[in-house]
């Protein structure tokens, strides 16, 4: 394997904490769990802090062709390209390889309820009724908003990213594998420059319904990840620009951090499986981690059995830990990319943000931060680890 070094040269993040690294630093530092019980009561949702979409998606026509998750992702992708200094630069965008981690299926709740309500009155043969309503009520643009790959499509259209375009699905695992494969392609010389990330809109009834069926949502009030059983969904957009070092140097780009390892696996979730998988993923990077200057940025969801196994594993590492889900909520596909972005911002600053955990598991870290291990243990599937390091 070649020794090509991979730099993170741009990050674009939006969430309930606002947009960009500084807003996130402030939000992560104020010591209180976020999330609201509002429109989706009793569920706790981390609503996006309002954005001026015009700043990254100048054409109103483009905005109208998207649903919220696509606008959020396209916006975050624009921030990342801007941060890397390649926004609008066709020379670089034409060989930028894109991997997007996406869900999809953003629905019109009124149509759903109208149809479901009508069916109960439509007698024994409801199908023609459903057909008629859908023919009249579905909008073509909504279909395009439901296609998972249309976030990538919109990024191509709005930002001109055309090197290649792939969309991975599968909740947290999609985000982990998107970063892993983008990283592996650069490391192997199959690519020099990549845009990778995803977006999730938590402010939707149909996703509350889905996770309510799994009984994995907390209710009534926000709670820190290590203190809860369940997750609170969070709206998140997160993109990274990954770049081979000499490619970045040649164009004079400054790195935020190095991404030195990314790995994923599939724990078939029997008791102990998460622990065994984390041990297996951590083993190859263990020797690289310097306990004096490293911390853990955890993507734990808060779903008790899996988060408990992750916690027990992390306790043994004796490093300062931060679970960002306490602040951002759980955003599934972009969870791993956002945590890599936050890790890059922290090592770039040389400092870890304060704990936010009444259980006392998260402890302060005063030493300069040079390394961050980013974890993913999905709420159901999706295990991954990454090592983000300061540029020497």
């Amino acid at each position, binding site marked *: 394997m070649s020794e090509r070094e991979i730099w993170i040269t741009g990050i674009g993040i939006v969430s309930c904490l606002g947009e960009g690294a500084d807003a996130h630093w402030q939000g992560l530092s104020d010591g209180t769990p976020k999330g609201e019980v509002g429109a989706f009561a009793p569920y706790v949702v981390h609503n996006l802090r309002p954005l001026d979409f015009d700043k990254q998606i100048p054409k109103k026509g483009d905005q109208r062709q998207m649903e919220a998750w696509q606008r959020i992702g396209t916006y975050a992708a624009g921030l990342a390209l801007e941060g890397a200094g390649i926004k609008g630069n066709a020379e670089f965008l034409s060989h930028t390889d894109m991997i997007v981690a996406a869900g999809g299926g953003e629905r019109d709740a009124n149509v759903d309820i109208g149809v479901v309500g009508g069916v109960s009155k439509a007698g024994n043969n409801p199908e023609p009724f459903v057909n008629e309503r859908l023919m009249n009520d*579905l909008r073509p643009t909504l279909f395009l908003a439901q296609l998972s790959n249309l976030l990538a499509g919109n990024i191509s259209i709005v930002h001109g990213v055309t090197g290649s375009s792939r969309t991975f699905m599968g909740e947290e695992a999609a985000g982990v594998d998107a970063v892993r494969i983008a990283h592996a392609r650069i490391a192997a010389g199959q690519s020099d420059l990549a845009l990778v990330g995803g977006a999730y809109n938590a402010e939707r009834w149909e996703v509350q319904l889905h996770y309510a069926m799994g009984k994995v949502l907390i209710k009534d009030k926000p709670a820190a990840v290590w203190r809860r059983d369940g997750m609170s969904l969070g709206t998140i957009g997160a993109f990274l620009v990954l770049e081979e070092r000499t490619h970045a140097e040649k164009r004079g780009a400054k790195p935020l951090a190095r991404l030195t390892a990314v790995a994923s696996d599939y724990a078939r979730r029997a008791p102990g499986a998460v622990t065994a998988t984390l041990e297996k993923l951590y083993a190859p990077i263990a020797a690289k981690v310097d306990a004096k200057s490293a911390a853990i940025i955890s993507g734990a969801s808060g779903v008790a059995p899996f988060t408990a196994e992750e916690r027990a594993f992390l306790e043994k590492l004796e490093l300062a830990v931060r679970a960002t889900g306490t602040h951002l909520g759980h955003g599934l596909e972009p969870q791993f990319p956002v945590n890599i972005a936050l890790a890059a911002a922290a090592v770039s600053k040389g400092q870890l943000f304060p704990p936010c955990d009444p259980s006392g598991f998260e402890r302060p870290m005063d030493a300069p931060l040079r390394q961050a291990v980013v974890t993913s243990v999905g709420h159901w599937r999706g295990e991954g680890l990454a090592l983000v390091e300061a540029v020497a």
Partner: protein
Amino acid sequence: MAKDHSGRPIVVVTGYGVVTSLGAGKEDNWKKLTAGQSGIREITRFATDGLKTKIAGTVDFVPIDPAINAPELSQRLAEMAGTEAIAQSGIGSAGNFPGPLFLAVAPVEIEWQQRQEIAKASGASEVSYNDLTRAAETGKFHGFYERFLFGSVADRIADKFGTKGSPVSLSTACASGATAVQLGVEAIRRGETDAALCIGTDGSVNAESLIRFSLLSALSTANDPPQSASKPFSKNRDGFVMAEGAGALVLESLESAQARGARILGVIEGCGEMADSFHRTRSSPDGKPTAGCIRHALADAGLEPDQIDYINPHGTSTPENDKMECLSVSNVFGERAKTIPMSSNKSMIGHTLSAAGAVETVFSLLTLEHQRLPPTINYQVPDPTLPFDVVPNVARDARVTHVLSNSFGFGGQNVSLVMGREPR
């Protein structure tokens, strides 16, 4: 020599499997495909009252219990194709495939039947989403929760075949199946693995999916007779026909295949890609991104355009696709474009959407294997603006050494694959 022109491991195919509306398995499919049979039929799975399109290439011969939903059928089709591919390859052992899974699958969504069941359980007369979530909280619907996660199909396929690592579910719309192959090729070229299982599957013909495509005016409404609806490159083509199916391929490094004495069925010589930034559902009017995509695939394969003997086109039968595809083929192949045979499998099996790239890779390999070109059926009214050799209506023998297969999708997704008969 197990390296290609760029010093990378050569990637070969040692097993493949396929299911379409024509039947299960490559033997049956190839027989019908080369006989010019159509798998398109009237939809019986759901009521089509009030719909403009009433036909599809549904796979109706696979029993699903208790009721068909897209992820359940997609999973079943992927299992069938995967089982056939792995058996032919003889790789690994039962439930222990020695490499990763790349699965092209339609985006998963809770469907009307589930929504209605939950609504019923809520007991509410004027139901709201709040009522639905309250019913959901009883835990009675945990099965729906798992089934309708985006990763659920890939998880279960990974469990069945014992693939290694995190199973990758992917979507590049109508190019998905080709992207799955491409990801497998890249993983083997990186030296991450000696083998990969690449599957494209789609079992998503349901009322809402059909209506969505219909609202985009993408579907043929030539319902009668169903078998004549899909007519790629014809002047009277009026849209694609939705269809179901799965294609599966066992990819392996040549070195690994030779070491275990496996029969080599073909070579994935090159993969090309170029995203189109023009429009969400239409391709750039100059055809540059699709032409660039084809050129990238040829360059990746280390071949010149004149070394391609046959094109397995995307060929959907929409007015737009076929026109644009012919333009990009002309751009790349020049005068020769008019004489390279180019026949669309979709004239017979319809558009298998997320599966199409994988299904058509299998058919391209069968074309190489049998040295016979399946036809473009329903070619009764040639489009004078597309003067190509579409292998009209009847299959024929031909010498085929290298095949180009195109897959172009909504969202500007373009992937081309180049396949060869034998390692060079």
